[in-house]
């Protein structure tokens, strides 16, 4: 058995870690340790361990169906099933191995078997055009939302409806709206081409202002009706709702600024996921609420500076 796929993945992981820098690498390590510790505790409880195990299988299936290198691996790498299943088992070890030290030890062999079975599935998600008329509601200039909603419209609408249904309950709708914002921040992971970057704006400031305005408008459209109804049912929460709305807008603005701070034409900025997750999770903890605002101030200048490199036009002085 050759370990080529595993070796490639280790190189990729090493490269990602290097690009993170020591500070964020340590934070990631802390997150991982916390997750492993939590999973170890959860495996001691029968019901919780079942939820975790089922969720893990769904995540693995999702990863396997969505991966874009399947055709290459099956066609060009010797023993593709063994390579893929080994890859899954090795990378999931920190999360599944704790089960061996509990009474739910049997999940481990079932997991290995599941990895092996899933690795046999050659099919992936078929590319097809969903919601072709979405651009009647969202301008193509706001392509991040158009693209993101085309991919995630069903879960986003489901979350919105759940928020609406639970409007009478005090905090529930806020949790569902927060999950919508978490989804929306992922819309800003993919960078556009230079052609598209230059299509609507002449300067970095103009671009950032335009993107911020579009995102704020859409966030308000999604959030205000729910928060108003929630405020009617729970008048004591009106101030909390206003602060919540402000924080959510700040998070989406930060997602835009982070994208353009690290902008590289045509690239998918997967490395930003960790920082973005920390900011979105931070917004749930009251004493960490100022973090998104601080991060926005920190990244505004950085994003302008990064964009100036690309916007540089010999005939114009960029502002």
């Amino acid at each position, binding site marked *: 058995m050759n370990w080529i796929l595993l070796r490639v993945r280790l190189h990729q992981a090493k490269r990602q870690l290097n690009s993170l820098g020591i500070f964020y690498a340590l934070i990631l390590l802390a997150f991982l340790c916390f997750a492993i510790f939590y999973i170890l505790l959860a495996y001691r409880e029968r019901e919780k361990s079942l939820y975790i195990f089922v969720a893990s299988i769904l995540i693995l299936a999702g990863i396997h169906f969505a991966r874009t290198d399947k055709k290459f691996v099956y066609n060009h790498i010797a023993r593709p099933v063994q390579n893929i299943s080994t890859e899954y088992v090795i990378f999931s070890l920190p999360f599944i191995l704790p089960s061996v030290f509990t009474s739910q030890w049997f999940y481990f062999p079932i997991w290995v078997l599941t990895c092996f079975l899933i690795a046999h599935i050659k099919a992936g998600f078929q590319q097809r*055009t969903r919601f072709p008329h979405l651009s009647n509601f969202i301008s193509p200039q706001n392509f991040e939302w158009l*693209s993101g909603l085309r*991919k995630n419209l069903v879960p986003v609408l489901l979350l919105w409806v759940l928020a609406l249904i639970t409007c009478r309950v005090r905090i529930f709708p806020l949790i569902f709206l927060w999950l919508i914002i978490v989804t929306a921040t992922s819309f800003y992971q993919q960078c556009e081409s230079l*052609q598209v970057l*230059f299509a609507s704006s002449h300067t970095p400031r103009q671009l950032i202002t335009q993107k911020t305005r579009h995102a704020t408008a859409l966030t308000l459209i999604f959030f205000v009706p729910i928060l108003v109804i929630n405020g009617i049912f729970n008048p004591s929460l009106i101030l909390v709702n206003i602060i919540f709305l402000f924080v959510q807008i700040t998070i989406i603005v930060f997602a835009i600024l982070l994208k353009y701070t690290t902008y590289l034409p*045509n690239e998918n900025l997967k490395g930003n996921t960790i920082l973005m997750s920390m900011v979105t999770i931070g917004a749930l903890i009251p004493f960490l609420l100022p973090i998104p605002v601080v991060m926005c101030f920190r990244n505004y200048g950085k994003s302008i500076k990064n964009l100036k490199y690309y916007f540089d*036009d*010999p005939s*114009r002085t960029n502002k």
Partner: protein
Amino acid sequence: MIRLEQINKTFGANKVLNGISFDFAVSLTHGIIGLNGTGKTTFFNILGTFLKPDGGEIFFNDKKISRDDVAYLETANFFYPNITGKEYLEIFPSSNRQFDLAKINRLLKLPLDEITETYSTGMKKKLALLAIIKQDKPIYIFDEPFNGLDLETNMALEIILKNLKSKEKTIFISSHILSPLIHVCDHIHLLQQGNFSKNYARDQFGNIETELFADYHQRAAEIISGSI
């Protein structure tokens, strides 16, 4: 006139453009040829203001060239995921008032309501081409536009290029195959060792192949017959 003054560009230790000073006449079609890695795309990126030269300047009608002057079709085209062809085109400003998408698409036959992930290489090239000709600019750059196109669209592209020329646009075009350039260009310029080493007017096009490849052809024939 498009005037290049001492354009330099180096990547690491590799000097790609070596102090190019050259004048291109406007309202004509200029073909750029050269072997792989001679700097054609770098030259286009600088002319299209997508890349800053290390030194030197480009003037268009005695003013510094601006991004607003140039429409640029790159060799490799990237499309934002989950966006339909029609939506992609709507991102670009429609400054060409004559541009009629429905009409031109009768010729190009693109499934504009489908997301671009479902497009073939040639279809993607056609879509990028539409985004370029939707814009009314005085200068058009086409880097390897014939790559991946079917025979019909090759012909359509030649007609599009001739049409742009009839509107007195200045066109720059590169290709690895000489024949389409011979059909559409007024001048062909050879980029070699970081500079335009040879320039051919239309009446000299017949000499290009013999001048550039006569020696190579004989040498390659000998090597191939002895090694395959």
